[in-house]
């Protein structure tokens, strides 16, 4: 909301500069977003851009802000006196008002003015309106705006001569009723919307906007001036449904002071009489059954001090609240240390309903800055991470130690991304949590996999000539689940390695492939102490059918490692092969071993031998290792494959695998003969189990 300082001064004496005023407003709950100086020399004004919080509709008028200002500057405010000079023609003879829906319209007041002269507004009024960005239309319309901006009570003027019949009704719209509002746009109404109707149909959307059919024009002679109170929720809904937000609807949806209806009406009528030479018919129309009871709230000083952490006396509290225009009376004996106070709430403070609401007022005006900063009682609590939280953090650290860069991608995806990746129809990735009101189709589903996001990141970087990437993300994926309202959220870590390292002095170029991704996973599993995991050949897009493995512990699948299928790679215009992995964090954490115990370190030296064997090409290296380990027993400390070779002199259809074996005994120095024996046994076992030959 824009507030003119010049206008504010009319109601309260501001004896400080604009900056200081703005600071004080901000520190008492009305944030000043900017200060703008306008006008010409001698006629300067300052316009404050205020953020009025939704609980304070009373501040959506200059008088409301004057009250606030008066409260923190400790000054009295001067609200204009309104005198109604009426002619001796009762208003009841000229129009009848029926309110059919009392719930949506708790109060409807009106006056009729005749013989008015619609013309331009006087300069002082135009200036005030224009200072805060309101366009001047004519004196009558300007007066309704002026009084609304002043008091916070929206007003509307109907051209009486254009109303059909001599009665108006406040009712819900009938199905298929329509109205052309004063913005010239025709809108269809529905029975949830409240309208003001004449004999023919709607002439205004209650609290939102008037109709073009009864708009005040240059020819208007008689007006019906409306000052009403509409249900906030109803106005909010109607305004949202119609996509029509007005200064009026913004006020009604927050709640307008039902005790201020007549003041605003009389103030506007008086201005029309003065500025448009109108005659005010005698009396009000005021459809308003029960005057609201004045709200009273019991405020316990003890509660104030408990919530705020202060030691305020009843007197201090009373003083603060009195400045806000709240009535305060002591309920306890005067000497009581923490007295109870009865607080009378004026009707304009629609937000004050409970004790806590009043406590906030005390804090606000007393000053947040004056409340002493303390720390909560300790209760011997400790700030600790759970085992799971620590493990998640450790997995992230390990992936970083493995050389991967963390990325964070949006949790959304589009079906087309999954299609491009070639996921099978029945794959879990294809079952998606769908958004009802997405912003774009690219963000229309919740991700079921982290892979599409990683591919997006690769594409972004490749387009910027950064084609070597080692990245990962740890985040949730979403799967709908029959019988559950909320989808399943699974925490997953996924990584991608692609491209070639830069050439460097004394360093070989490396191209990332399947074995790098597998190496990351092996490293991670190793460091986490998960020894029982193994890799099994796996297939299925988006993976390369020959370069993909499942990571399993028994029946349980921890994740997958694989290269992106070459066809997918070219379809997605990726320049290099992409090695990927996906790991389920829950499964990993479940597989974590209990804390291991220390294994004694042998003090004896090692003996190493190399072993090169020739096996059929389809014999897996993993199988060869398994046989070696099985035969070597506990003396084998380390087994490393250091060569894989096919081609002459190795016969066609066969391959040569070379291993280095390191032996060590816990209790003695191994002698060479003993190791030779073990080695010979391994060779015999390899020969018999895998038809291996020794390569010399």
């Amino acid at each position, binding site marked *: 909301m824009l507030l003119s300082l010049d206008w504010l001064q009319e109601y309260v004496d501001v004896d400080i500069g604009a900056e200081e005023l703005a600071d004080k407003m901000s520190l008492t709950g009305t944030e000043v977003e900017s200060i703008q100086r306008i006008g010409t020399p001698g006629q300067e004004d300052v316009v404050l851009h205020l953020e009025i919080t939704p609980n304070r509709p009373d501040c959506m008028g200059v008088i409301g802000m004057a009250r606030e200002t008066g409260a923190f500057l400790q000054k009295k405010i001067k609200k204009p006196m309104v005198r109604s000079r009426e002619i001796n023609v009762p208003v009841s003879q000229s129009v009848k008002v029926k309110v059919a829906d009392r719930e949506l319209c708790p109060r409807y007041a009106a006056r009729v003015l005749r013989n008015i002269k619609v013309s331009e507004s006087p300069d002082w009024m135009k200036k005030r309106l224009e200072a805060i960005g309101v366009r001047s239309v004519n004196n009558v319309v300007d007066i309704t705006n002026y009084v609304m901006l002043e008091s916070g009570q929206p007003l509307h003027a109907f051209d009486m001569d254009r109303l059909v019949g001599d009665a108006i009704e406040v009712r819900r719209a009938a199905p298929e009723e329509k109205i052309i509002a004063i913005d010239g746009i025709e809108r269809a109404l529905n029975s949830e919307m409240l309208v003001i109707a004449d004999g023919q149909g709607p002439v205004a959307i209650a609290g939102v906007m008037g109709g073009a059919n009864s708009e005040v024009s240059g020819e208007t002679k008689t007006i019906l001036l409306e000052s009403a109170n509409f249900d906030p929720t109803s106005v909010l809904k109607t305004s949202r449904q119609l996509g029509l937000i007005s200064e009026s609807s913004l006020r009604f949806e927050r709640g307008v002071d039902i005790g201020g209806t007549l003041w605003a009406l009389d103030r506007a009528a008086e201005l029309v009489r003065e500025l448009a030479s109108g005659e005010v018919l005698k009396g009000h129309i005021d459809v308003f059954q029960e005057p609201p009871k004045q709200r009273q709230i019991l405020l316990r000083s003890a509660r104030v001090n408990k919530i705020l952490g202060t030691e305020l006396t009843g007197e201090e509290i009373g003083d603060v609240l009195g400045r806000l225009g709240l009535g305060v009376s002591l309920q306890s004996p005067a000497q009581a240390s923490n007295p109870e106070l009865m607080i009378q709430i004026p009707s304009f403070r629609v937000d004050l309903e409970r004790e806590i609401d009043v406590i906030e007022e005390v804090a606000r005006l007393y000053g947040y800055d004056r409340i002493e*900063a303390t720390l909560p009682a300790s209760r011997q609590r400790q700030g600790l991470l759970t085992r799971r939280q620590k493990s998640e953090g450790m997995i992230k650290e390990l992936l970083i130690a493995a050389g991967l860069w963390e990325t964070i991608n*949006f949790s959304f995806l589009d079906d087309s991304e999954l299609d491009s990746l070639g996921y099978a129809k029945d794959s879990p990735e294809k079952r998606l*949590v769908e*958004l009802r009101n997405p*912003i774009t189709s690219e963000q229309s589903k919740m991700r079921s996999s982290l892979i599409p996001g990683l591919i997006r990141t690769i594409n972004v970087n490749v387009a910027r000539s950064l084609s070597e990437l080692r990245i990962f993300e740890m985040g949730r994926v979403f799967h709908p689940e029959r019988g559950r*309202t909320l989808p399943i959220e699974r925490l997953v870590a996924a990584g991608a390695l692609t491209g070639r390292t830069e050439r460097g002095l004394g360093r070989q170029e490396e191209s990332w492939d399947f074995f790098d991704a597998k190496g990351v996973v092996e490293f991670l599993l190793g460091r986490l102490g998960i020894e029982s995991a193994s890799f099994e050949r796996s297939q299925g897009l988006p993976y390369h059918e020959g370069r993909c493995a499942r990571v399993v512990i028994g029946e349980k699948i921890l994740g997958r490692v694989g290269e992106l299928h070459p066809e997918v790679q070219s379809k997605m215009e990726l320049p290099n092969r992409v090695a990927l992995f996906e790991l389920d964090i829950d499964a990993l954490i479940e597989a974590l071993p209990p804390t291991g115990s220390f294994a004694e370190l042998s003090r004896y030296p090692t003996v190493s031998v190399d072993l090169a064997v020739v096996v059929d090409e389809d014999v897996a290296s993993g199988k060869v290792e398994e046989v070696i380990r099985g035969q070597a027993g506990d003396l084998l400390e380390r087994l490393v494959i250091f060569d894989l070779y096919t081609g002459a002199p190795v016969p066609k259809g066969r391959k040569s695998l070379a291993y280095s074996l390191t032996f060590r005994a816990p209790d003695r120095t191994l002698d060479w003969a003993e190791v030779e024996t073990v080695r010979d046994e391994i060779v015999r076992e390899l020969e018999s189990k895998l038809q291996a030959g020794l390569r010399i």
Partner: protein
Amino acid sequence: MRAEDFLSAIKKIKAEALASIKDSGSPEELANMRHRFLGRKSELTAILRKLGELSADQRPGVGKEANVAREAVEEAFAKKQEGLDKGHLEKRLQEEAADITLPGRRPRVGRKHILTRVVEEIIDIFLGLGFRIAEGPEVELDYYNFEALNIPKDHPARSLQDTLYVASNGDDVLLRTHTSPVQIRVMEEEQPPLHIIAPGKVYRRDVADPTHSPMFHQVEGFAVDSDISFGDLKGTLECFVLNMFGEERQVRFRPHYFAFTEPSAEVDVSCGHCDARGCRACGGKGWLEILGAGMIDPNVLKEVGYDPEEHVGFAFGMGVERIAMLKYGLKDLRLFFENDLRFLEQF
């Protein structure tokens, strides 16, 4: 042999040995010489073995002479060895001198995303203050995201345009718009005292631009106990802000409105460039808003079955991206989720 012969032989060997040592040019040559002059098969050793041929009164004199010669040769060897070693080392040092302006071979290590690091920094501060971490679902029920937080349907604070809803579930399932639902979930399960922070992703129906993002991160925090006060909220957040931004900064609390706290506050930190005087970096304001906070509204406490007369609490929430942007001077929110390596590399 006679004693004189022994003595002259010793003298000759000594002279020969000293000359040879002097002429040795390499450690290998010197080792050979050592073998030749002092080894088991050396002339000197042979002479010492033959001392028995001498008479008892001659033996000590010759023996002494032989030992003196031996010691002299040993000493010469040692000296020479030292010299050779030194020369050799010097040569090696010279040969191995590298152009130290050539780049080092760097280990290939990854990096955490800047947002992860900021979240961890926030978490560390609160762990130190005795808070625990809780988490909740990102796809959330309307009840936890709004209803239980004192934001009923048709509340002005609940504008449909801001929330992403999940299809085929009516209005009931949505992407959480803040991390506050975790408050409700924890309070439903546990009894006070509670001191919790809840970091996580949140979603809004916003098109990505420099200051908006459909997804971002928040850290929620709250404490419930029998005697928590607004003063405790101030103390806790001041402690956090000064740790996060530096002891020289100032913190201020401004009254504000949130449906689920009362009294509510927005928390500002003084601009690091102008110390709250107002400059270009802070848009002339002097203060930068970083947190929303307040005392948990009694309605919220009642909703989870707590008695507001018995238990009070505070809650606060902050945007991680905003804190990262303020801390590192970033101007465009989109950079966080683009994952340009050059961006990731900077932090």
